């Protein structure tokens, strides 16, 4: 049985402590993006809800 959120809840982004509104059908293992800092976050647990920075390939940026 895939763990799934039962209702809409707000979580805190591990990167910028921003408020993250997660809708009712968010799944464990799903990747969501923080609207404040753009960080990609992986739902690592449902009850209780846990989030972690998703592994991200470092973009070649800047100079």
């Amino acid at each position, binding site marked *: 049985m895939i763990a799934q959120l039962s209702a809409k809840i707000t979580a805190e982004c591990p*990167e*910028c*402590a*921003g408020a993250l509104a997660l809708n009712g059908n968010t799944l464990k293992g799903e990747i969501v993006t923080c609207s*404040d*800092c*753009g*960080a*990609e976050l992986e739902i690592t647990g449902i009850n209780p809800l846990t989030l972690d920075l998703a592994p*991200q390939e470092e*973009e070649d*940026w800047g100079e």
Partner: protein
Amino acid sequence: MTTISIVGASGYTGGELLRLLLRHPQIEISQVTSESRVGEYVYQTHPNLRAQTTLQYTARSELQPCDLLFLALPHGEAQKNIAHYASLAPKIIDLSADFRLRDAAKYHEWYGAHADAAWLEKFVYGLPELHRAEMKTASHISGVGCNATCSNLALLPLVKAGLIDETKPIIIDVKVGSSEGGNSPNAGSHHPERSSVIRTYAPTRHRHTAEVEQELKLTNVHMTITSVDLVRGALAAAHVFVNKPITEKDLWKAYRSAFRDEPFIRIVKDKTGVYRVPEPKILAGSNYADVGFELDEKTGRVVSICAIDNLMKGAAGSAVQSMNVMCGFDEKTALDFPGLHPI
């Protein structure tokens, strides 16, 4: 309808005021003056306004009473006739540096003698993010310096959160576009000499220091201005040291609370993407100020970065925003243009 006139409308700032005010539903532009261009249509100096209006420049001497007067004259001009202008309109917004400073001695230190220093205390400083309440009941509002504005907004969250170690110097290194110099050409603004430059034309003693120290009540501010190759845009990098160990999350909270509900300020600090830090060019024509930061945990240095369009949030945009607050209009009226990308 509120009737508005603009004194000195042929400059870049005057042109931006016109562009914004022509789309403002609650005001009506009655006169726009320019001594050097009397009789010309405004589009002849502001080509983006062709077919937008049939307004022609009049002389200052023909100014009629109106509800609100924008003064967009070169520094030193408005202060000579402020009493006369005040007799023509109950509300005045002066975009020059003439009435930004509250303290006559400070004005004298940075600009020399003031022609009518008694008026200094009658003006509210023209940055709504700092003086919204006072503007609601004000009759006279000053302009803002563009370098001062990106510096003030870069530092504001750190000042509000009381995080700055003021025993250490606050260095603000501002990079600016060519429109800051106004529309009168000089040897250095000639295209072959101006393109691709990195020209630190004001290493020390920049006048806008006075506005930053006044508005944020700081004393240890040191500005440096460098012009680079773009037309519109200013970006301040404020180098400060925090007065206690903190994390980036603490800074996020400080920046969010400082700018909560501010319609024109966005926090820009992304993990990915080309525009992950504040970037002036995509703000051209918009009233946004994008603010970001980075903390060096090893040294306690915070680099706070603010990007604006020097002609908009750094001048005409803040002036129209102040007008909206002063006249009780919705603060965002006529200031909704989001900027262009790519540009």
